[in-house]
């Protein structure tokens, strides 16, 4: 394994981590601020991708389609908040889990009725469809670099929003003591609705951006939802910074595990045993990482102040 290959894999890991961060950011925000476990976050990611399929087809352009899809996702987020989430504030986590699980079933079936069961595609924007040569025989699509840049931009934007603006201050205050903020004359209900819809839009942004490199299909958000939960739990619930670090960590560990674990095992095991154990272990690395971190830090890497 050459140094170039290792570097390329590190880049791949970072890029997967950024995608995970885009999904996890909204989840941890809603969880941390509103204390709501929103399992429907995964289907919001999927809806983003499907809305983008339609929006980019209707407008004929990626760049015109993106704001349209995001606006639609924002509206759907507000509707979902109003219909299902609002009555769940302050309720038991398990009840939130059950209700949002119901939303998953409904939306997964709904997209099949609306867009069909087969996989769909989002065309890659012309301007970003080039590629650069990373190593002999391997190109790196510019689009993936754009994805990384978009992820970093979202991270920066969130940081500024939460720590430097009045809205962010209210969000932080609302998270630690909602009744107090409410007593001070702030409409906490409206604030929560905005946060939730913003989270939905972040998930949809991730889905729309992932569309050109991934298959858009029913249930595409389910597996990613689990990974996103892994990320926010490792990072510490409610912590955007934690989600960012954990997403990169998970992306890197997963990618490097898939790339090199089998070869490493071959150094200590027979070749056939290594090809048996390697892939199984590589699938587990993320979960081993999470279990390991939680055993030593039961509230994640960056626990929110109690």
């Amino acid at each position: 394994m050459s140094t170039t290959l290792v570097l390329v894999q590190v880049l791949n890991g970072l890029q997967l981590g950024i995608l995970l961060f885009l999904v996890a950011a909204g989840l941890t925000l809603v969880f941390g601020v509103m204390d709501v476990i929103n399992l429907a976050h995964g289907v919001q990611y999927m809806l983003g991708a499907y809305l983008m399929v339609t929006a980019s087809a209707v407008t004929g352009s990626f760049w015109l389609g993106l704001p349209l899809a995001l606006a639609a996702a924002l509206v759907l987020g507000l509707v979902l908040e109003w219909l299902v989430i609002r009555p769940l504030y302050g309720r038991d986590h398990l009840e939130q889990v059950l209700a949002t699980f119901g939303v998953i079933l409904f939306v997964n079936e709904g997209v099949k009725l609306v867009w069909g069961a087969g996989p769909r595609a989002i065309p890659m924007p012309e301007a970003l469809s080039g590629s650069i040569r990373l190593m002999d025989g391997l190109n790196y699509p510019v689009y993936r670099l754009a994805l990384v840049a978009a992820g970093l931009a979202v991270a920066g934007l969130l940081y500024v929003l939460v720590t430097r603006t009045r809205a962010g201050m209210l969000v932080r205050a609302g998270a630690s003591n909602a009744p107090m903020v409410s007593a001070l004359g702030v409409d906490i209900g409206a604030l929560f609705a905005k946060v939730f819809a913003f989270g939905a839009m972040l998930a949809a942004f991730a889905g729309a951006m992932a569309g050109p490199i991934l298959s858009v299909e029913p249930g595409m958000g389910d597996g990613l939802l689990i990974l996103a939960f892994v990320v926010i739990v490792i990072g510490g619930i409610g912590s955007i910074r934690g989600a960012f670090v954990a997403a990169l960590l998970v992306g890197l560990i997963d990618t490097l595990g898939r790339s090199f674990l089998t070869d490493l095992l071959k150094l200590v095991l027979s070749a056939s045993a290594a090809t048996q154990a390697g892939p199984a272990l590589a699938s587990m690395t993320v979960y081993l990482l999470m279990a390991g971190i939680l055993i030593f830090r039961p509230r994640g890497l960056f626990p929110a102040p109690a």
Partner: protein
Amino acid sequence: MRCGVQSCRAGLAALAIAVSAGVAAADPVKVGLVATLSGPSAVLGQHMRDGFLLAVKEMGGTLGGQPAEVVVVDDELKPDVAVQKVKGLIERDKVDFVAGVVFSNVMGAVVKPVTGAETFLISGNAGPSTIAGAGCSPFFFSASYQNDQNHEVLGQYAQAKGYKKVVLMAPNYQAGKDALAGFKRYYKGEVADEIYTQLGQLDFSAELAKVAAAKPDAFFTFMPGGMGVNLVKQYRQAGLAETVPFLSAFTVDETTLPATGEAALGFYSGAAWAPDLDVPANKAFVAAFEKEYGYIPALYAAQGYDAAKLIASAVKATGGKLTDKDAVRAALKKADFASVRGNFKFNTNQFPIQDFYLVKVGKRPDGKVETMIAEKVFAEDGDAYADKCPMK
């Protein structure tokens, strides 16, 4: 779910009554069609179901002259759910045939409850090696293929083409391991790397970097469903498509091509069928299918269509006396129907002996993308497990 839509069951029954006015007092033939219709793989089941129902519709709602009733159930790609559903088909609906089944792990779970109840099971897709070999059953017929065969096509092609070094890749599960074993049965050159990926994997950049680093003459993969869509797109985007030929099975077909589009142009696959296969029955089937459903049929649709025709042939030959199991079995074994695959007959293990082709993704005159026959690789090919089956 009974029948894709409730109306479909009712509709077929009505059709059957209208047609059977001329048919002498007949018990309806009841077929349970098991397909995966939920989750990301639902599209495969949808193709199979639509192919099967198209055949029944074309025959005027009958199978072999008897009015037909098709009960469609969704196995949800969960083996235990599938077992529950086929028990319902057999014990409650009292079906005469169970047909369909997309995935091998589902087939592994249902084969015993169905054949154990002495009900005929007609596979519309899955063909695991155990059922082709020592676990073969007089009540099991495959209207599809044995799982290894499509992979062997690419192995043979890579060998004949003189590729010196290949990289193989499949998801880390049984079907993936079988796929690579099937390829290696005919390919004798160097295998630079065997990469096993996670089931349901989204991003393949790490694996593609390894492929590029190995600099192989060709790349072979088995990556069904949405995973295949992701891989095909990313393979093209990584620029590998220009340098390393993409050989595959169940990865580029008409279920995934709508999503991959032109990214898959020039990619190879192995199959016993393609929409442009030059057989009269096939021309008619593809045209009727596109007219009826508005999309291009895939392998699964063709196999579902053939499964219905196979059942019809047996019903007809026995005059509808489906209680005589030996007679039905003898009739099924003759495979007396016009397969969309042309050459089609049964081996001793009741899997097909048929031709296999290298197919290549190309563009039709109307701009749509589909797989097209490139060359015949195996003629009248039986599978590698038939001699392990005690049936003669």
